[in-house]
């Protein structure tokens, strides 16, 4: 039995690939079951989470766990960069906020017109109210309450709740779409570099074509045609955002292709699949981690921009959507436009700091 498994594992290029294939088949079967027999085992985002979770565990977490000492060494170097640590702390805070925040806040979509345009705590605004009996305008001073710490918008929705919901959306999109883009880009880049020749030419010309589309306009175009839903937006960003990753990984893998350990593996009769997944990919993993971290800001901004122009998922409250509402009430409730932008800005800044710190730790001379 064990011998059989070992034999099978060798055929597909290692035990990890065997586990991946088994889990992927399982997931595929669930998806088929979901579509044709029963409805909704997982929602579309759930499938993305599961797929990426499996790939992450097998190809990122597992190798990292195997080389704990190396990870510790790099962590010591990242720690020296104070901005990177600060960024990491903010990201952790954001993740906690996204997971546990909704437990403490009200429904972000619940409108309450009696409490509209409340300023944040510590701020006051004045509102002119027409008094029909006297025919005069009365100036009423409104100050923020702790019930709505960040104030409310022009429909009386709680801004804090909207911000927390937005953090959820941004993180989900940022992590999932980047995961798809990086996985796809890595695969295409490594295959292109390893196989070379015609395959390389075809893949790189295709990359050129995709790169010639302006990223954001292509995104707008596709979402316009197929309609906005969060899972679809994640998928589209992932499926269009891999080009830069593929280029970088390809050039890195090209230099690895002729190295001794690859030749040795080839001489020992390893299959192409095994060389790509077991020898080439693990050797570009530090580059992958840096690229992934530095890609997240762009992805988060792209989603925010999409919802800002009204092409976001209308069912979930995201930062871009709040900002859009905020721009329309700039003269009555400025805080609605300020809060989501500040969060977006700090999130992007945090990921940029962490990415920069990681890059310096892995390879101080590189300029990814």
């Amino acid at each position, binding site marked *: 039995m064990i011998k059989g498994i070992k034999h099978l594992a060798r055929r597909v290029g290692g035990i990890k690939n065997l586990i991946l294939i088994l889990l992927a088949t399982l997931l595929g079967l669930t998806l088929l079951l979901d579509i044709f027999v029963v409805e909704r085992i997982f929602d579309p985002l759930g499938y993305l989470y599961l797929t990426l979770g499996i790939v992450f565990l097998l190809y990122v977490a597992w190798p990292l766990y195997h080389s704990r000492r190396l990870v510790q060494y790099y962590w010591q170097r990242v720690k020296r960069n104070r901005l990177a640590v600060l960024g990491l702390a903010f990201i952790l805070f954001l993740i906690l906020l996204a997971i546990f925040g909704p437990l403490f806040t009200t429904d972000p979509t619940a409108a309450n017109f009696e409490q509209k345009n409340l300023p944040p705590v510590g701020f006051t605004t004045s509102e002119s109210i027409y008094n029909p009996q006297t025919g005069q305008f009365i100036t009423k001073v409104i100050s923020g309450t702790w019930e709505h710490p960040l104030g409310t918008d022009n429909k009386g929705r709680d801004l804090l709740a909207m911000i927390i919901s937005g953090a959820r959306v941004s993180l989900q999109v940022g992590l999932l779409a980047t995961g798809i883009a990086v996985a796809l880009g890595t695969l295409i880049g490594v295959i292109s570099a390893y196989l070379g020749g015609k395959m390389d030419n075809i893949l790189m010309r295709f990359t050129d074509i995709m790169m010639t589309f302006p*990223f954001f306009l292509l995104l707008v175009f596709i979402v316009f045609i197929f309609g906005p839903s969060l899972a679809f937006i994640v998928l589209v960003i992932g499926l269009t955002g891999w080009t830069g990753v593929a280029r970088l990984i390809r050039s890195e893998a090209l230099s690895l292709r002729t190295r001794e350990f690859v030749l040795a593996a080839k001489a020992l009769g390893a299959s192409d699949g095994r060389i790509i997944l077991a020898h080439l990919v693990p050797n570009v993993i530090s580059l992958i981690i840096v690229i992934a971290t530095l890609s997240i800001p762009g992805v988060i901004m792209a989603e925010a921009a999409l919802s800002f122009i009204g092409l976001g998922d209308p069912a979930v409250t995201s930062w871009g959507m709040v*900002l859009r509402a905020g*721009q329309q009430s*700039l003269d009555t409730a*400025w805080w609605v*436009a300020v809060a989501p*932008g500040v969060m977006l800005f700090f999130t*992007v*800044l945090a990921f940029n700091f962490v990415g920069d710190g990681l890059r310096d730790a892995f390879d101080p001379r590189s300029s990814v």
Partner: protein
Amino acid sequence: MRKTWLRDYIIKRLFYAVIIAWGILTITFILVRVGPTSPADKYLTNLAARGEEPAQVIAAIEARYGLDKPILAQYADYVVNLLRGDWGWSFSTSMPVIKLIKTHWIYSFQLILFSTILAALVGILIGIYSAVRQYSKTDYIATFFSFIGISIPNFWLGVMLILLFSVKLGLFKTYYDTGIPLFSLANLKQLILPVITLGTGMMAGYTRYTRSAMLDNLRKEFVRTARAKGLPERVVIGKHVFRNAILPLVTIIMFDLGSIVFGGAYLTEIVFGIPGLGRISFNAIFADDYAVVVAVTLISAFLILLINLTTDIAYAYLDPRIRYD
């Protein structure tokens, strides 16, 4: 020897450009065709609202737009029409798409032109200064601000500028006024906020690129030689280091123009209500006007293709050291 190589290189690049152009057309066509609704459906609601028979309307529209033909014939029509300059009919504005674009491109052009010039000038100057005084206080401040400039979402920056300068201080109008003639001081004034909005991110990027390109060259042997010869520092930096740093920099600026600037201009136009290509595409999205959205996407992709092609060829021509295989 070099001449034939250059000619071969240009021919090869042109050949690739044609392939890429074909790929852009094809991908766009496939996306529109695969989409869940056909353009005919979108017109349908409009026409059916006027009390016309749905089935007849569908048939009429499909015949008019050739949607009843086999898919390959449609594809051929699509490509031929685009090449002939027939880019379709925008029903939300009731004019041919090509005419719509002809009247609106100038607004995008002026925004992108001013932002790029400003961002490149300021960014490159700060970058040079930052590199020459590496690890000085100015360098740290410049690096810090370029980080902020890269991380700030430009549409939010635009909204904040409107909030501060238009709503609170009342210095500018909150919206772009198309009544003002294009070539006037008033138009320049109302472009200030949009140009800052679009230019900030670009400027931050150029500062970083210039700094690292200058630093790369500052460490080279020929710089030491130039200094050893007793050349004044101004000449060493300006003539020896900067000249070597400028070419890769121009490539990056040109590349950015495509990938970042077009998207940024799209958003900036929406924030400020500038009636450029981004704004007409935005309006078309909410009017379900397919032809306009397709046209704007195609035009920007083709422009990028053209820019990249020119940059590559100019680069090979200008830098005698360059060799591509």
